[in-house]
């Protein structure tokens, strides 16, 4: 696989992520694509730990660790300070988990992108509060077990569609990306870097610990999420121009679900229902992108 990125890494070995951590893989590619003129804001999330304790840091760019709900606002302040100092070269990036993005940090994020602050906000999505031990977030998908949706109380609510919420702010650029599609991920980071204003990247980052999967399955599961249309790869410019980056091969969602311990309680009926939801979401996305159903080879 040939990637159009520097050999240089901005993330050291010796980080303290779990084996197979998708968020660590995502960070590595992100920084390869951004380079050293980057300032990173990390609100509370797994990466608050992964980056290492004082006085070490696993990242070779400046990092400002901040409170859980402040990702959008802290980045706004750094950008304003850099502007005041005449530094237009440095890219300000917020790197937050799904809890810090979908839930507690949503207000500050919405405020920042409404002001069209000039920064990149990246949500690495592992679909629950993993750092505190797998509690449900509004990103946790329908059907999932978590420690706060245990037993028969498994989550019977849809995952919040965060990209569409950001698109509704008419920001210059919003995109999904996956650790299983690094060329696409790196291209999107570079594209985002070249755009002014608020840019949002939603990166699918598998969590072997929280999803109850073997660590060597992290990439496979991520790839299947895209192939099943559970996590479609697409980008939206200026809130209106949709481009779908990957057309599915007709995999059924059950293939994805049956590999993960967090879904093991689901019945065939549940899986059929989930398949319908995924189909519905995919068709909605196709309509927005102006792609016909036959051209897209939708799963029956």
């Amino acid at each position, binding site marked *: 696989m040939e990637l159009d990125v520097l050999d240089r890494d901005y993330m050291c070995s010796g980080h303290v992520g779990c084996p197979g951590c998708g968020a660590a893989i995502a960070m590595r590619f992100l920084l390869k694509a951004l380079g050293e003129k980057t*300032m990173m804001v990390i609100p509370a999330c797994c990466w608050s730990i992964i980056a290492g*304790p*004082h006085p070490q840091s696993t990242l070779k760019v400046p990092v400002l*660790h901040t409170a859980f709900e402040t990702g*959008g*606002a802290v*980045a*706004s*302040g750094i950008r304003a300070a850099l502007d*005041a100092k005449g530094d237009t070269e440095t890219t300000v990036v917020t790197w937050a988990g799904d809890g810090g993005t979908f839930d507690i940090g949503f207000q500050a994020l919405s405020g920042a992108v409404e002001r069209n602050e000039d920064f990149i906000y990246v949500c690495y999505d592992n679909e629950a509060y993993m750092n505190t031990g797998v509690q449900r977030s509004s990103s946790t998908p329908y059907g999932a077990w978590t420690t706060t949706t245990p037993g028969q109380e498994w989550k019977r609510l849809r995952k919040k569609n965060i990209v569409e919420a950001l698109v509704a702010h008419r920001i210059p650029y919003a995109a999904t990306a996956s650790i299983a599609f690094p060329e696409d991920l790196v291209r999107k980071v570079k594209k985002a870097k070249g755009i002014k204003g608020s840019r949002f990247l939603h990166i699918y980052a598998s969590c072997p610990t929280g999803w109850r999967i073997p660590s060597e399955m992290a990439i496979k599961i991520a790839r299947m999420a895209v192939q099943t249309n559970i996590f479609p790869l697409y980008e939206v410019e200026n809130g209106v121009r949709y481009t779908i980056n990957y057309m599915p091969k007709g995999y059924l969602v059950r293939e994805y679900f049956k590999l993960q311990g967090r879904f093991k309680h689901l019945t065939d009926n549940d899986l059929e229902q989930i398949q319908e939801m995924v189909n519905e979401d995919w068709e909605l996305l196709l309509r927005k992108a102006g792609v016909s159903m036959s051209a897209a080879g939708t799963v029956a």
Partner: protein
Amino acid sequence: MKKVVEGSHAVSEAVRLARADVISAYPITPQTHIVELLSEYCSDGTLNAKFLRVESEHSAMAALIGAASAGVRTFTATSSQGLALMHELLHWAAGARLPIVMAEVNRALAPGWNIWTEQTDSLAQRDTGWIQLYCEDAQEALDTTLQAFRLAETVYLPVMVVLDAFFLSHTYEPVDIPEQEEADRFLPPFKPAFQLDTQNPSAFNQLAPPNVYMEMRRSLQDAMESALDVLDTIEDDYEKLFGRRYGAVEAVQCDDADIILVTSGTVTSTSRLVLRQLREKGEKVGLLKMKAFRPFPFEALRKHTAHAKKLAVIDRNFSFGAGGIFAQEIRSALCNLARRPLVFGYVAGLGGRDVTTDVIEDIYWRTKTSAHPEGESIWIGLHQPAPAA
């Protein structure tokens, strides 16, 4: 040049003179006039600062944490609910050792909705690591704000400049506004000791396990302890340039006083008048104005109250289940002394109720005629309960 300006605008003028780089604010009465004028100054080019119109006070402080970490001079203003919403980030700003300056206009907390003055909002933030300086009038608000930047940027702690709602924030007074070049001589550009820098990448505020956390807290306390001496030096320079100084406390006729009124904020001005009237009647009364609350001016308080028999502390604030907050702190500052005055704690003027000369005189006479305080705190001016229908 002397101009008649609103108390709020005296603060705005100081921020203009300080050449703040990033201002971030969210509207809340009675603070709003401060940032409205700054917004105008940013828009017409009088002040070359970035003004962030954020979606909450929480984000206002978060944005300044980002900006100050990137090494620029920052300012915000808030009140009451807004300050309470910021609470988490007040700890953060101080722990991160960021020299943020904030004007805090004292306003009572809801419910019920009350926009009038009371100090409980700022005093409830006493353990956050912010320096707190309480102002008496518009001139002091301007001078203190300008000094606050130098103080913050010397000790690397955030500074809260505190002023009473309406009695100070919305009252017009003649204020001597320094010329820009004089202000520049007093306050040089901010040269941060540390900042986010791509040439020298460091991680800030990261995981701090038990083996390092305690030393971080201690260094913050060391900075706090140095702040009063630093403020004193800053006031020396300020006095040379502008002829005014305030001190962490101000003692008025305390040396021979049997009873000392202890005040903060605008109640001090009213108390000055009462003091004069009582002195004319031959009463041996003094007045101690508390300007610094954090760091707490232990030494100055002990020195000026050493010979008094009684202190009458007037608290426009309250800690439920305990008492007036200044009175509590003053008691604890004096408790280990062999010889100490009795501390009478009075609670008055909550939610903006007027503290008039009559109220203060009543407090004086009650103190004089009581051998001991009637209780932990004595509430003044409570209405009698309405008779049952």
